[in-house]
């Protein structure tokens, strides 16, 4: 079993004339936590969408858990063991919190009924409460529909969903963007728990303090290309900002300039 859980080679995505992602070579080891940073529009979310099969890449290879993969959609990615908090959250507005948390993997009874198997509402509600408490969010009524939740409450539901299920790889795209001080601290705790459990993580964030606190390694995107790959111990906030803004570029990524 190889030490590398995810590898991309020359991963590229063009939207018509927009070259959103260009030749990304990226590796992630088992148990490693990596942050992706970069300006708005640098291609971070695009990178995530290619890995999780939300979109089909223009070219390049993705090797997950030792095998080249071609996910036709996020369902396949999830079945393969990739849990993702998307930047757009991917919540069903008219459903309530437990429904969203368990969407696509409901707890059920009488499973021989196939698609018509019964939902176990009670069990799902209980597990939802447990999962939400971990994120530290306050929600007056989890049976209310998601569209009525505040920005931060929605984000916490999306995070709770990912944290509830074990996976081979967790990806979080700006998970704490809308969170308050307390909730951010809680979510950072969740990330630390993952680290202790040895589960690998890709964290996208604009928050330098958070990144420096949580991850082992920082990869910087600029204009659709990777321009730096920094071990946390060997860098600092100012240095990273220099890479983000384009003041510096690592020699091995020079064509990205």
């Amino acid at each position, binding site marked *: 079993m190889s030490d590398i859980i995810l590898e991309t080679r020359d991963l590229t995505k063009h939207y018509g004339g927009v070259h959103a992602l260009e030749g990304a070579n990226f590796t992630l080891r088992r148990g490693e936590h990596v942050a992706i940073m970069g300006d708005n529009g640098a291609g971070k979310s695009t990178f995530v969408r290619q890995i999780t099969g939300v979109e089909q890449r223009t070219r390049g290879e993705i090797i997950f858990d030792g095998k080249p993969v071609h996910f036709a959609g996020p369902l396949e990615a999830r079945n393969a063991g990739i849990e993702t908090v998307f930047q757009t959250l991917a919540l069903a507005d008219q*459903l309530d919190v437990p429904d969203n948390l368990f*969407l696509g993997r409901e707890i059920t009874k009488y499973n021989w009924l196939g*698609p018509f198997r019964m939902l176990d509402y009670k069990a799902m509600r209980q597990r939802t409460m447990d999962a939400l408490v971990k994120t530290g969010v306050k929600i007056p009524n989890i049976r209310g529909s998601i569209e009525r939740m505040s920005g931060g409450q929605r984000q916490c539901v999306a995070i709770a969903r990912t944290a509830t299920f074990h996976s081979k790889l967790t990806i979080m795209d700006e998970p704490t963007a809308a969170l308050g001080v307390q909730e951010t601290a809680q979510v950072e705790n969740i990330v630390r728990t993952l680290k202790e459990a040895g589960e690998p993580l890709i964290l996208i964030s604009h928050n330098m303090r958070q990144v420096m606190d949580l991850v082992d390694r920082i990869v910087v995107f600029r204009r659709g290309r990777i321009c730096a790959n920094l071990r946390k111990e060997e860098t600092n906030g100012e240095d990273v900002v220099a890479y983000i803004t384009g003041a510096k570029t690592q020699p091995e990524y020079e064509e990205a300039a």
Partner: protein
Amino acid sequence: MSDQTSQGVGGLTFDHKKRAWPNEFNVFLALILITLLFEVLGQVLPYMNGQSMLFDFNEARDGTILNMARIKIIILQVAIIGIISLGVTQVIISGGIDLSSGPLVGATAMIAMSFAQTELVNGNPNPKAVFGLWAMDLPVIVPVIVGLAFGALIGSINGFFVAFARIPPFIATLGMFLVCRGISQWWTKGQPVSFPTDSYAWIGSGMMPVVWFIGLAVVLQLIMRYTVYGKHTYAIGSNEDAARMSGINIRRHKVMVYMIASILAAFAAIVLSSKNLTAQAGMGQFYELYGIAMAVIGGVSLTGGRGSIIGTVLGAMVFGVIQSGFTFIKLDAFYQLMAMGAIIIGAVVLDQWRQQRAAARA
């Protein structure tokens, strides 16, 4: 919602007494109001001589003061479109629409009836025989299976185009609308198909359509409310992208949704042709529109994700009361159409108005 305990995390104030009443309540209210309206009209219109729509004080023909004959017809006349409407409801909840159900009724009625003909009519050979003797007096299961299979076929084509070819449901089902109309006219080149076997005639006889309608409504309500199928249907209608990203197999699910809708429409066609003892190419005209209207009056949202089978059943009842009420007050046919239009709009206005007050928003 069946469960009264609702829960919060982090301990925010939540006042349970103030929970809004269910949406279906509105439709129920509209139903009562419309019924009352006709009762009042029966009393005040001079030519009505103070008749009552639902009560029958003088005769008590059925041993009750209710006018049972009227109550039966109110349900009976919407039962068949009601069955279609159940299927349409789940299609709309999933964010789609099904225009093909009306013509599908015509085509299925023709096809199923051709396998349900009896050999001798009043001692003479069946003058409307579609096939040879081999297709006469077949067991009732044959036409039923053939009809439902045809429905499943059309439904799966609808589903395929919507789910796999990503055609807007309006267009995919409009296309099948035309295809089904073509099939129903082509099947016997326009000739009606008549004289079914007794066992086939039983399916739609008497109050049987109502039995089917209510039975199917109960089953569908349970499915939509308590099963994975139902939950995923709501999820897809609520936010298809989110549902896909959450790992629901959207395509397979949509095909199922459209298939179930078409199978229900096909079953409605069987009941309809049995009830009328004939099948004609033009049968089912406008049923798709009425089916959709029943669902929407029942609170199903055309943008998907919202609504319930119970609502649709109540929506169907609204139609039944209106139609019966019009005949009761002897309204001219011209005005019936106009009044029907006004009442459909009015029922939804009421609903909107109540929702807005409840939400106390602008």
